[in-house]
């Protein structure tokens, strides 16, 4: 149990990379990139977890109560939202690629035409 969550994060990362490398559809590979990205959230939050502690919100907690690490949560939280907008930019590029080259299969994109 002491390293299992970290290993799951590693598995998700490797699965995402495998999908990226073998994808035959650029839209699908953007989805695989999102999978690989989510492994970082699993790793960050697993590192910050503390057994028997609660969420780092002191609205109804006594001062000094044990809480999980808020720093890693802050890192993951902003990246979840910002990552979605970057995914949108990638998908916009796929749409543009389809308009100009007529395919979204990376294997058939032989050489960049003007």
């Amino acid at each position, binding site marked *: 149990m002491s390293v299992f969550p970290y290993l799951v994060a590693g598995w998700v990362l490797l699965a995402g990379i495998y999908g990226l490398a073998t994808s035959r559809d650029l839209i699908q590979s953007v989805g695989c990139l999102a999978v690989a990205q989510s492994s970082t959230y*699993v790793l960050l939050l697993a590192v910050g977890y503390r057994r028997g502690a609660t*969420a780092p919100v002191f609205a109804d907690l006594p001062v000094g109560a044990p809480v999980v690490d808020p720093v890693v949560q802050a890192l993951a939280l902003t990246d979840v939202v910002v990552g979605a907008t970057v995914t949108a930019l990638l*998908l916009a590029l796929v749409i543009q690629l389809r308009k100009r080259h007529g395919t979204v299969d990376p294997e058939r994109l032989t050489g960049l035409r003007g």
Partner: protein
Amino acid sequence: MTDTLIVLALLAVAACATGAVLTPDPARQAVVLSVLGLSLALLFTVLQAPDVALSQLGVGTAVTPLLILLTVRKVRRSPRRGGDQEPGA
């Protein structure tokens, strides 16, 4: 008890991630991705990270799959220059 929940959520995340990667059709993959988003949100909740879970719930289950589905619709609707391999959708 909490540890059991965490292990179950982790297994769900690993299974959904593997499933999403092994789904070749992007429209189906969008559905698997939204289930992955939901299981990630559950995992974050049991890891005592409600802030991240809220963020993941909105983005992972709604925005990202919606963007992918809209892209699929756009790409498949306009056959051009030889067209694509998959018909319809």
